[in-house]
């Protein structure tokens, strides 16, 4: 039953252990590895795009393949790389930060992961079965509804499955944070990363169902002959745009907010100061989450919603700059007068502040509805959202990985290599995307396969491509660092950064039950309070007792596999009715597993306190 025993039985047992695990720390590993894998695929697609645009009249890839590249680059990076990498961090850190032994729903946690993975795999199978989706990551109708082949069908089914996984993950973290906090951990004592995870989960809960519906309508139109987006039968394509962006705009805050939290924790730790304006940070997070639902139509200024709608959405969009500005200043004030240690994690965090601010500034420019008619669908937009997503999300993921790597894998990533990876990536990032604003202002449209000689776009694009290669080099150095660290670096201590929050009060890596005794939280930055009072660890809130643990289960894997099989059935039943067999088999597997889960009691097991004393690895 114990995970430690299973690990000693070789590779097969280890794989089985990971397939059936419900331990949030192992699920974090799964998310990290698969998210990292998709990040590399998405990065490869980006490189192909940049090589194609390197010079005028280039024919490195065909126009059709280029459409598939840009679609899959965007879709992969958002849904299959950024989201799971964030979920990896949440899984690894949040239960530890609130002093919990696991998440509220360990079984659902595993289900969320497997749904995401099988959805992502389904989407990428399209490369080998006659063409990937090619209607852009936004998949606007009627381009998507009339796209030939099965590419867009893969988009619809893949995102539907992985989206369900994300929704489940969001609910899981909401309940975990509401119900599983250690004694004394009030809401206003939660570390910022936990707070932002909480708000992010709220956004996931209320944003993803809109995508679910949009994808269902798209599925019905493409596979079952309905007429939602078919104008000749009275349909309306704008419905897709609304549903997509009602989901899509909160989605960008879903991506950035957790990293805002990570930056807050990192900057506070490496400045040796309490986070400046903690409560303002919390309320700014809540406000961003709230406003995030009121701005979706700023993606649709040129649709023709009319001046009143455009004005309202322009103003609400600009309003988001206020809480974001509060955050920027609070990070600066946290560092001010602090004893700053320039670790790799801190380096990424400091680089994030100006980079993201530039992205925020162009965001306000884009929010001006009248001016947006000029920017819309140009490289200015591409430059803008890469500044916030790479400059915010990717920098944040790198920072957070450096920061929490010892907690996840028991070793501190090599600092020298960390710095060495940072500089090419940082310089390459600005080289790639800064110039794209100007390319856009000069009239270069996004999503075009190529451009002509003599349009003055050649130099800018060349610079952009050079930058992309530098980013690739930075990424490769980071990957090398992972291997190097695994082989050469020594075991990390429980608290390598002189941390402030609960995750640093237990060993790196933590035992599978996390806390031998649930900690007592006596204020913000609980570990720091104990250190200041001269204690070694955190005061326990309970005597040593039996620990209740959940059982491992293969059902989440089977449920997701079922939907994966059914996905193929839905996609190909258009060609031949026999494919409904796959639908029946897949749905049977999924529903059968769900029924098994409902009917078979799963009570978990107990670790007895005598065993805890013997092992003595609690702390």
């Amino acid at each position: 039953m114990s995970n430690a025993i299973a690990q000693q039985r070789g590779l097969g047992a280890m794989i089985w252990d990971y397939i059936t695990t419900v331990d949030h720390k192992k699920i974090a590993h799964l998310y990290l590895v698969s998210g990292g894998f998709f990040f590399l695929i998405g990065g490869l697609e980006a490189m192909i795009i940049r090589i194609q645009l390197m010079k005028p009249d280039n024919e490195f890839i065909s126009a059709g393949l280029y459409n598939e590249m840009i679609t899959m680059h965007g879709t992969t990076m958002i849904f299959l790389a950024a989201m799971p990498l964030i979920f990896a961090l949440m899984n690894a850190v949040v239960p530890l930060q609130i002093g919990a032994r696991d998440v509220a729903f360990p079984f659902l946690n595993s289900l969320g992961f497997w749904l995401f993975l099988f959805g992502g795999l389904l989407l990428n199978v399209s490369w080998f079965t006659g063409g990937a989706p090619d209607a852009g990551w936004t998949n606007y109708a009627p381009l998507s509804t009339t796209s030939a082949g099965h590419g867009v069908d893969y988009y619809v089914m893949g995102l539907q499955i992985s989206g369900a996984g994300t929704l489940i993950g969001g609910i899981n973290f909401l309940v975990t944070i509401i119900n599983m906090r250690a004694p004394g951990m009030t809401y206003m004592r939660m570390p910022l990363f936990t707070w932002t995870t909480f708000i992010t989960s709220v956004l996931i809960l209320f944003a993803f169902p809109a995508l679910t519906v949009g994808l269902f309508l798209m599925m019905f139109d493409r596979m079952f002959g309905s007429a939602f987006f078919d104008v000749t039968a009275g349909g309306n394509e704008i419905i897709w745009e609304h549903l997509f962006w009602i989901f899509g705009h909160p989605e960008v805050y879903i991506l950035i907010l957790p990293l805002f939290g990570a930056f807050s924790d990192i900057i506070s730790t490496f400045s040796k100061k309490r986070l400046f304006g903690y409560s303002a940070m919390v309320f700014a997070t809540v406000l961003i989450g709230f406003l995030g639902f009121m701005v979706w139509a700023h993606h649709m200024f040129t649709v023709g919603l009319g001046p009143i709608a455009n004005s309202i959405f322009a103003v609400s969009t600009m309003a988001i700059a206020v809480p974001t500005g509060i955050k920027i200043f609070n990070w600066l004030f946290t560092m001010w007068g602090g004893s700053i240690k320039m670790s790799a994690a801190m380096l990424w965090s400091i680089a994030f502040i100006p980079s993201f601010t530039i992205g925020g500034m162009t965001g306000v420019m884009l929010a001006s509805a009248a001016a947006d008619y000029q920017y819309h669908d140009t490289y200015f937009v591409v430059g803008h959202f890469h500044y916030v997503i790479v400059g915010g999300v990717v920098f944040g993921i790198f920072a957070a990985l450096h920061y929490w790597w010892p907690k996840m894998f028991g070793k501190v990533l090599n600092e020298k290599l960390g710095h060495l990876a940072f500089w090419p990536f940082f310089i390459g990032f600005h080289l790639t995307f800064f110039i794209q604003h100007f390319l856009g202002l000069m009239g270069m449209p996004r999503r075009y396969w190529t451009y002509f000689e003599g349009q003055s776009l050649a130099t800018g694009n060349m610079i952009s491509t050079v930058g992309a290669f530098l980013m690739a080099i930075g990424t490769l150095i980071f990957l090398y660092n992972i291997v190097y660290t695994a082989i050469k670096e020594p075991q990390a201590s429980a608290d390598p950064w002189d941390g402030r929050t609960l995750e640093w009060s237990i060993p790196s890596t933590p035992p599978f039950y996390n806390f031998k005794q649930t900690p007592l939280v006596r204020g913000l930055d609980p570990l720091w309070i104990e250190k200041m009072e001269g204690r070694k660890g955190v005061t326990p809130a309970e005597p040593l007792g039996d620990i209740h643990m959940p059982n491992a289960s293969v059902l989440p894997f089977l449920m997701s596999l079922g939907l994966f099989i059914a996905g193929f059935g839905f996609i190909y039943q258009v060609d031949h009715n026999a494919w409904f067999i796959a639908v029946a088999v897949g749905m049977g597997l999924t529903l059968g597993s769900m029924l098994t889960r409902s009917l078979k009691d799963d009570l978990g097991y107990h670790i007895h306190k005598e065993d805890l004393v013997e092992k003595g690895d609690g702390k």
Partner: protein
Amino acid sequence: MSHDDVLNPKQMPHDPEKATLEGKNKFIGFWMFLGGETVLFASLFGTYLALVRSTSGENTPEHLFGLELVFIMTMLLLTSSLTSVYAMYHMKNHDFKKMQLWLGITVLLGLGFLGCEIYEFYHYIHEYGFTFRSSAFGSAFYTLVGFHGGHVVFGLSWIVALMIRNQKRGLNLYNAPKFYIASLYWHFIDVVWVFIFTVVYLMGKVG
């Protein structure tokens, strides 16, 4: 310490569905899930309202809908919500037999509703030639009402599965939360129907 002792105490607490941490987690988690479901149905309602005038031929809402049948369906479903409240009332009083009885009545009423809905769809398709593919209105109507119908099917299967599974062993702290959230789901289905009744049928007849 075995689970049976914990889950089958001599004296059941007043709120057996929230007596364990797992129960509390399920309770809150399911409310959250229903929040997400609300957005799901809101999106479907929005789509329906955008496409309700995109009819073809004489198959308009005014022409198609008959309020008599819909009234019966509404009564069946509203009553089934009430009977599921009775079931939960008996759960809190630890009377398992009566809980099963009222859940059984709930299921029968739900099946009655489902029968009416299937008849309604059959009627539209065969008498009027009004299908999922005939117009954008048709697509939106069948999707919205069909999603609700799908929820009814799922809810009924869920309640029946729980009833059969626990028939012999009675109520304990492990299955009480399961019964409770199944009844929450059933209430949610009922609330959605109230909106469908208003937005689709009433507004369709007079709007």
